[in-house]
């Protein structure tokens, strides 16, 4: 399929980009990796008059870490860069796992973390671990800058709080909790090029003296319209020693809390069940990583 016609704009700076968004707003779409947008255009699901290519704006890509503060990832940063970053592997391992999971080597080389977050597909891989890490999105537009939790940014199936004239500039991931680890797991039918049937991300910290859970966030993917926090499961874990029994209880709650659908990839019943299984496994893996 050929694409419907549009005008192509390639700004060289954030200011220029914002200016274009201000001018064209709802008639424009941002082009980052293209793996999503091009398909949407080919299907005629979207027909923007303007396509604004952000790949020429160097400030939008890059990974920088400030010890004690946190990690800033430019929205245009490629998934491949996130997968390969030694820093992210070391400090935010679940982000490495999520990036490694996406699509194929080609897709990882093209796709961006911003695209993955802004498309807000319920099956997207980056949002669940980002949500558990308390990630913030930093938006910029003609009215200035604002930031909010990614968790609040994603509103529904392919819906975000991004205004038509706004740009997702970067994501900020706070410094990990002390004595914590984060892990992510997914399940699909094939071992590559899969769209997840379900996924679970965990970020968990233990109290040094008692070994009780000091803090925990669990987010599930592909089993709700948004990356869904399993709040009841978190409450089950908080303040308790994470024995196998407690883990199973929390995992069970994950299954109960999510709201999966039946679709051609899997039934709701299977998703609910496998979320429980994944949650238990990811919790165990996270605990072992804390050591």
């Amino acid at each position: 399929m050929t694409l419907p016609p549009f005008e192509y704009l390639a700004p060289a700076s954030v200011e220029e980009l914002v200016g274009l968004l201000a001018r064209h707003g709802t008639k424009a779409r941002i082009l980052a990796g293209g793996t999503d947008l091009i398909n949407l255009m080919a299907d005629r699901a979207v027909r923007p008059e303007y396509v604004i290519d952000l790949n020429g704006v160097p400030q939008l890509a890059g990974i920088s870490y400030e010890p004690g503060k946190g990690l800033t990832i430019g929205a245009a940063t490629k998934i491949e860069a996130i997968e390969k970053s030694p820093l992210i592997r070391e400090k935010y391992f679940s982000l490495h796992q999520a990036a490694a999971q996406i699509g194929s080597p080609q897709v990882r080389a093209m796709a961006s973390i911003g695209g993955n977050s802004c498309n807000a597909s319920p099956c997207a891989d980056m949002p669940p671990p980002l949500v558990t890490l308390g990630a913030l999105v930093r938006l910029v537009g003609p009215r200035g800058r604002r930031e909010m939790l990614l968790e609040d940014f994603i509103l529904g199936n392919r819906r975000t709080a991004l205004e038509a004239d706004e740009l997702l500039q970067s994501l900020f991931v706070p410094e990990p909790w002390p004595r914590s680890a984060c892990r992510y797991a997914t399940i699909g039918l094939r071992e590559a090029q899969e769209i997840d049937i379900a996924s679970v991300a965990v970020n968990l910290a233990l109290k040094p003296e008692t070994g009780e859970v000091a803090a925990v966030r669990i987010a599930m993917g592909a089993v709700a319209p948004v990356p869904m926090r399993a709040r009841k499961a978190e409450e089950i874990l908080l303040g308790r020693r994470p024995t196998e029994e407690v883990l199973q209880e929390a995992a069970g709650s994950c299954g109960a809390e999510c709201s999966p659908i039946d679709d051609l990839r899997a039934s709701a019943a299977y998703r609910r069940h496998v979320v429980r299984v994944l949650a238990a496994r990811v919790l165990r893996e996270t605990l072992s990583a804390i050591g």
Partner: protein
Amino acid sequence: MKQLIELNVNGIAYDVIVSPEDLLVDVLRQKLGLTGTKKGCGQGDCGTCTVLIDGRRALSCLTLAIACRGKKILTIEGMEADGRLHPIQQAFIDKGAIQCGFCTPGMVMAAKALLDENPDPTVEQIKRGLSGNLCRCTGYVKIVDAVQEAARQMRAAQSQEVSR
């Protein structure tokens, strides 16, 4: 609005007239006559359109041609040099990794990207590196063998170079 752009493909600068919506795979195949890059699905699922842009993997069916100005594109036609096949290409022939051949150009490009990053990959790493390229004919067995062989040949040639 059509534009005249310059595309650098396999080291040659081409002047092409493109509309913004033209996909790189179509421009390569139809405007530049470089039909080695294939179009198996047009949705980025099969990998037959894989090319390298500035050394990085790209699905040309999901890439706008106009976004490739100033970049160096490498397609299957650019893999051979002065009439000599690249070791990856030779290994594919020698190991019987080619049946219908439709996935082959994309596989070779993906293999090149892999070996450029990692000259000594394990079998698992090879499989992962090629996981974006579908093949319905071979079951991938001889393709993986070929990439292993190519890696061996390329490392041997490299150490010969170094020792010279």
